[in-house]
């Protein structure tokens, strides 16, 4: 057995997500990703089930594993109690651990998510904070959100919130002591390590593609990743 198969089998979610698949296709039938992407969770499970290390590595380097939207509708319907969406979680984890994610357009986007959601979690204690939903990056949010974004103190106060202030309540400021605890959890449980790996492999890819700035920044790379440009 190769390293990838070993890593797969170490994760409890792999055992929970894939017992034995009989290729019936109920997952693909209702998969939101299968409808709009060239994606078929049944075939993905089929590859993983083949135990073919090489084929699985191909998968880890491909866009395929990044199409799933994690709705887990597949879990509800599977007549064998499998959950392709959970298998995806494990594949994505391994792809990031081994650095394969930078080989595909959709995989490379992990750096964007890490810097957006990942960093926001440790900085604010929230996954999403009004400060990161910038109207220029979120035109779909529309003019009402732009009004909220420009007047957060007033709007959240009107809504009975406690925006960015000490104490309990909606969107309260999460104090440094709590953020310290969150950070400690990330350090002990591999959260920080994963962040570092996403940064490291992205920087490697940027360097390889000649997209690294003189001070080591990867802004140019990120720009290209954002635009889904070839790298």
């Amino acid at each position, binding site marked *: 057995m190769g390293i990838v198969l070993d890593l797969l089998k170490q994760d409890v979610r792999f055992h929970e997500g894939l017992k034995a698949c009989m290729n*019936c296709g*109920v*997952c*693909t*039938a209702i*998969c939101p990703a299968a409808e709009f992407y060239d994606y*078929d969770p*049944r075939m993905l499970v089929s590859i993983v089930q083949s135990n073919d290390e090489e084929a699985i590595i191909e998968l880890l380097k491909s866009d395929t594993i990044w199409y799933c939207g994690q709705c887990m509708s597949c879990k509800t*319907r599977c*007549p064998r109690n499998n959950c392709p969406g959970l298998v995806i979680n494990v594949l994505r984890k391994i792809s990031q651990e081994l650095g394969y994610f930078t080989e595909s357009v959709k995989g490379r986007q992990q750096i964007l998510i890490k810097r957006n959601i990942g960093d926001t979690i440790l900085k604010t204690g929230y996954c999403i904070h009004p400060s990161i939903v910038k109207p220029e990056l979120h035109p779909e949010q529309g003019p009402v959100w732009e009004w909220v974004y420009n007047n957060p103190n007033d709007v959240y106060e009107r809504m009975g919130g406690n925006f960015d202030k000490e104490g309990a309540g909606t969107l309260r400021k999460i104090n440094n002591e709590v953020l310290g605890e969150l950070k400690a959890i990330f350090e002990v449980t591999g959260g920080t390590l994963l962040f570092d790996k996403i940064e490291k492999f992205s920087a490697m890819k940027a360097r390889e593609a000649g997209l690294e700035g003189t001070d080591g920044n990867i802004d140019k790379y990120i720009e290209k990743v954002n635009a889904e440009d070839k790298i």
Partner: protein
Amino acid sequence: MGKSIVTIGGGIAGIEASGILAELGYAVSVIEKEPDFGGKLKNWDHLFPNMRKAEEIEDYLSRKGKTPGITLFPNTTIASFENIKSGFVLKSNHGVSYSAHAVIVATGFEVFSAERKEEYGYKIYDNVITSADLEKRLKSGTPLTTLAGKTPQRIAFIHCVGSRDAKVGNTYCSKVCCVTGVKQAIEVNKLLPATQIFNFYMDLRMHGLEHEEIYKTAQEKHNIQFIRGRLSEVSENIDHSLLIKAEDTLSGRPLKMNVDLVVLLVGMEPGVGTTAIGKACNIEFNQYGYLKIPDVHLAGNLTSRKGIFVAGSCSCPMSVKDTIEHARSAAFEVHRYLIEN
């Protein structure tokens, strides 16, 4: 000989086994919980593989049930079961005692309750029916229409409903549904030649000499379309037609289709009667809840207790033909046992 036998269940297997044993000179009491005998056979219209009317078998069984030596006890259930030296004593719900040197359990199966596959909308949507419902409608001879009285333009038959499905707890194949689905598709095509018919399947388990031929005929002569993909969900459109979703697995794409009628090919389950009797007689069940046989090849009619035998689909899913054969071998096993003991 003077030895007596109690058969629990007056369906195909119970009557057939009892009839043979009566012919051999035993006194057989057949206990049936329903008011009449013949089991589920009365609900079926035509039987595969040769499209014989089910009534022919019913007639045969009703003659068999009149064999001298058989006594039929309708509306009767077993309230208690006791071991004695010479065999068993069973007490009925009417307080009658039956002593037996051997007992045959022939309690049959239940049709899978399709409402447990909630995503298919049985008893939620008007135009979702089961293969058992369809069989009744075919038998009644009333025109096959949607609830609103419209002739369906498109019908989908859904294979493996309640079979091969860990979610409903039935991981086994019910064996009869594949061919039933194709048989019914052909029958519907004969009634409604302009209607498009689709069968959604995972594998078509067309075992035996004749079943594959039925499948080929369905393709060749009846324009039945087969789509390899298990159905994922049924939902209802505003006009009460149904939207169904599966994967077209052979092309690897999701597929949706509007149909007027959905027929769920329901599988077989051990009935509550089987569970109750098995517990009362203290015999073992297999992992699927059917009665356990000690040796699949060499002791298909034996149970975990000496003197108690099994006949028919209370041991595993069976067709009418399989059931009759299994009942005959049960009769032989009982006979051998009573000679030896």
